[in-house]
């Protein structure tokens, strides 16, 4: 892209000999520096499907922390520029969509320090928190894949603030560079795709494994008995 811009801007001048040699060298150096110091900003798709599962008959409060809502991963990758991957709003949409399908009713509530102020009758309060985000690019792994790992910690509280269960949720997504033509810019769309797949993976695992935690199973049993 930069090379194309360079040619379109200065190609005519070079062809007609109007650009002196020193200026030509300076322009080439500038192009190389700009290419090397590139920064990549990634926004992740926010559309997730509804889960095809039987909803748990519970009224759940959900708290999304500011950290989760505004989460952006910034990293400097040696010789590959700086990366900024904004995941906050996508993971908010993902949890919102999956929880709406998993429980008969969900309501957004304030954080654990303000549980006492909640007046709506709830069966439990769920708090997802992003703990770690890592990604790798083909230049680092020598594979054709852009990969993303996300680790969440999920906490389920009683409305009184007492913890019912706390467990980690790990997610993984990868995007194959072979799926993009050589004329296509790969960096942003591939990381975007790997992150989107990781978020779907988190949602899928969360939905299917939720009832398998022993404490959660007991809580669901108590809920069904009451």
């Amino acid at each position, binding site marked *: 892209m930069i090379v194309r811009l360079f040619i379109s801007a200065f190609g005519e001048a070079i062809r007609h000999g109007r650009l002196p040699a020193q200026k030509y060298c300076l322009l080439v150096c500038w192009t190389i520096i700009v290419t090397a110091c590139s920064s990549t900003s990634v926004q992740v798709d926010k559309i997730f499907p509804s889960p*095809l599962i039987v909803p748990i008959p519970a009224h759940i409060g959900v708290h999304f922390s500011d950290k989760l809502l505004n989460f952006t991963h910034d990293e400097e990758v040696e010789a590959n520029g700086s990366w900024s991957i904004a995941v906050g709003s996508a993971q908010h949409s993902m949890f919102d969509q999956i929880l709406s399908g998993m429980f008969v009713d969900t309501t957004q509530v304030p954080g654990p320090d303000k549980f006492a102020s909640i007046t709506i009758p709830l069966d439990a309060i769920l708090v997802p928190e992003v703990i770690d985000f890592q990604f790798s690019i083909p230049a680092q792994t020598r594979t054709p894949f852009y990969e993303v790992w996300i680790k969440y910690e999920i906490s389920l509280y009683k409305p009184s603030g007492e913890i019912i269960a706390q467990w980690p949720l790990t997610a993984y997504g990868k995007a194959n560079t072979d799926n993009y033509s050589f004329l296509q810019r790969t960096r942003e769309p591939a990381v975007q795709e790997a992150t989107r797949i990781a978020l779907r993976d988190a949602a899928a695992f969360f939905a299917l494994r939720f009832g398998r935690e022993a404490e959660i199973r007991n809580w669901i049993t108590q809920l069904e008995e009451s």
Partner: protein
Amino acid sequence: MYFRIIALPLYLLTLVACVSTNVEQVRQASTGISLGESVVVMGRKNRSSVSETEEAFVACVNNKLSRSSTGYGVVPQKEFTDALFPWFEPRTAPLDSAELPKMLTEPLIAARLREIGVHYIVWIQGSTDRVDQAGAMSCVATIGAAGCFGFLTWENDATYEASIWDVQTGTSAGNISSDANGTSFVTGVVVPIPIIARVQSAACTGLSNQLNSFIRDET
């Protein structure tokens, strides 16, 4: 004169190298598809797999099957995984047809499959890899002149296998493998002349044609 200048590179670009394709089939059950039923073609994306089936290959099989199918539909992979979310994601999809009957006991899954009319799930595994290469070519471009000199050759091998699962019976109906290989060349005498062996396309055509016959029980 101008026509020749334009036509020669275009003619050279259309040159294709030879590709040999081998398609094999193993049938485990009788097949057949009714009017209004459909097939879904899926690429395997397991976490552990170092090589992954290219989306272009899955799309190619999908397109060829859509064009050749008469009387049955082909559901796009994304539409299918979204409709059955979270059951067919890379880490949650059944790895073996033996897992299918248990999955079909879930009333919601069985109902959704009936709703979208999917009769067969076709899982595609494999990839196209460069197995050998030789030669060198250097290109030089200066203001007012450019040219390439040298000779390049490489051999590509496309190996794919399709597993066909019958959703109605919860069993594996069979497997079809398609193996294509060919050697491509680029000769550079000022103008580079590529002679490309389209192995992935050949493997896709072989697999799709056989898959269509297999589903319709014509083999």
